[in-house]
């Protein structure tokens, strides 16, 4: 124990004497650890965010989408091009399937929305009242549109809080106001509660406007839908059974590859697989800076060995073994590296605190352990070569060195 205290103390004395050099040497590791930890934190935050988003979708919901959107657990990008559209015939058939409780056909349109005050670009989602319950929406002011609004093709909308604020200055002022979307007049009958976040893994519903799908036929004369969402009876039916029933019905009209029946969990898995690959690539790139940092430490350690030749000679003359000298320099480079790692970690913590205000990000125990583990491993690995050089110096050459 005494042995290590002595060696560590001597190393720290050296660092104190060369504060700037020590800091610059650790800087490489600092940057490396910082970027790896931050990227991991963002990756983790993103994953958590996606999980949360999908947690809001009930376990008893399903989507029918055109194309083979998901194959083998990942997104099939090509499917977006060969898409079919669903129509009222599909709706009628699916609604009749045993176990299907509610059904929400969906299509959307980019519009220019005008209030008496302002004009904003936004998206209207045309769907049924079931859309709100399937997606776990809550109303803040007013009401959702209902079956009778759909039957009557009422020109009513429920509006997201952000777009409401943009159009009316304050979300609370939007209720009962009129808006014009692509020259069609709508009345606002409800303002949604915020779903928060937005931007990752799903649409930013706070910025959307929702209207009965029948009212949207003005923009959609073919009466086509790009997606169908549904809720099923999960007490008497399993997901597999329902999927099988829907598939059987759909296969009567479409071939196997032109549609998908998706569980929220499937999307979750696919989104996560994309992000985890992306994150791994980023972390791998960031790791290169750790490598560069390690080489920086090795370089400085070689210089240090030369500077300390006399000291090595003195230590050898009073009985230090080769291994004692070896450990001394490895400990020194490890301290340098861990110092950089700890500073990088500290900086990453602070940055994450700030980032959390805008962005889902969090640091878990694993990334802390990884950062410290990796930086000490780098210190040891890149310290070995200079330390070996130091310990192999002959005592007499070293002590004669001026």
């Amino acid at each position, binding site marked *: 124990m*005494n042995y290590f205290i002595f060696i560590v*103390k001597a190393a720290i004395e050296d660092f104190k004497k060369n504060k700037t050099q020590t800091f610059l040497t650790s800087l490489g590791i600092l940057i490396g650890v910082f970027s790896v930890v931050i990227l991991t934190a963002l990756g983790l935050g993103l994953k958590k965010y996606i999980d949360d988003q999908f947690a809001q979708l009930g376990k008893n919901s399903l989507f029918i989408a055109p194309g083979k959107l998901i194959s083998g657990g990942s997104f099939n990008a090509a499917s977006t091009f060969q898409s079919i559209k669903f129509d009222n015939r599909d709706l009628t058939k699916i609604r009749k399937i045993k176990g299907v409780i509610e059904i929400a056909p969906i299509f959307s349109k980019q519009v220019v929305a005008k209030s008496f005050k302002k004009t904003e670009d936004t998206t209207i989602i045309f769907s049924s009242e079931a859309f709100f319950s399937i997606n776990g929406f809550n109303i803040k002011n007013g009401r959702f549109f209902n079956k009778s609004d759909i039957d009557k093709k009422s020109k009513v909308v429920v509006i997201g809080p952000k777009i409401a604020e943009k159009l009316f200055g304050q979300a609370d002022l939007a209720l009962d106001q009129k808006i014009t979307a692509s020259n069609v007049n709508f009345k606002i009958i409800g303002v949604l509660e915020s779903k928060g976040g937005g931007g990752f893994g799903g649409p930013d519903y706070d910025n959307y406007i929702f209207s009965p799908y029948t009212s949207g036929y003005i923009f959609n004369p073919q009466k086509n839908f790009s997606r169908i969402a549904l809720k099923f009876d999960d007490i008497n039916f399993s997901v597999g059974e329902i999927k099988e029933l829907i598939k059987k019905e759909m296969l009567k009209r479409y071939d196997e590859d032109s549609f998908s029946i998706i569980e929220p969990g499937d999307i979750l898995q696919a989104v996560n697989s994309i992000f985890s690959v992306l994150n791994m690539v980023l972390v791998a790139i960031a790791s290169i800076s750790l490598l560069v940092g390690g080489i920086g430490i090795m370089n400085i350690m070689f210089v240090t060995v030369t500077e300390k030749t006399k000291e090595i000679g003195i230590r*050898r003359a*009073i*009985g230090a073994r080769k291994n*004692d000298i070896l450990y001394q320099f490895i400990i020194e480079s490890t301290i340098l590296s861990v110092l950089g790692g700890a500073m990088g970690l500290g900086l990453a913590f602070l940055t994450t605190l700030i980032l959390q205000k805008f962005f889902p990000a969090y640091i878990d125990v694993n990334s802390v352990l990884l950062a410290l583990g990796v930086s000490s491993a780098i210190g040891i690995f890149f310290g070995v070569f200079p330390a070996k050089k130091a310990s192999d110096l*002959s005592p*007499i050459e070293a*002590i004669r060195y001026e």
Partner: protein
Amino acid sequence: MIKFKNVNKIYKIDKEVVFQALKNINFEIKKGEFVSIIGPSGSGKSTLMHLIGLLDTPTKGEILIEGKNIKNLNDNELSSLRNEFVGFVFQQFNLIAKLTVLENILLPTIYSRKKLDFDPRKKALELIKKFGLSGKENSYPNKISGGQQQRVAIMRALIMQPKLILADEPTGNLDSKTGIEIMNLLKKLNKEEKITIIVVTHEADIASYGKRLIKIKDGEIVDN
């Protein structure tokens, strides 16, 4: 205790040129002796000292330390001997600047592999008191005088209770008054603690502290 048999040391200057620093050196030093090795600059005194102190190995010939041929010892065994058997005192003191007086004195003990039969810290503090450096325990070497630094070096040489102290020009960097103090100290250690002492010098009055004189010139012993 120490026996040199036909020891030669040849330095390679470059590919073809060599320099013979020691030529057929034979001598024996017994336990408890106080030997002065005197000779002009470049005569090979330091080279000889480094061989006795196991910092270097001879090109030819044999060195026996307490009957053991050093040729048969590996690096770890040589290190242990340097740690436990010999204590070095150098002309330039050779203290480690970033360690305090106390830490410098303790340094050999941390490299010891044997179980010490004394408390290093207690012993070091005793030595500091005995050598008149009380109050300087936590000073750094550059904050004390040359004479004090050399005392610290002697304490460092003594902490492991060695059988032999090697002093290469111990007074070379000191004024004559301080030099005399240091020599008296060594003399006392030889007399009271029975430590074998070898002092290398080129000054006759420093050499006169020894009980035995070995004269060396151009790498050869000219008088023993």
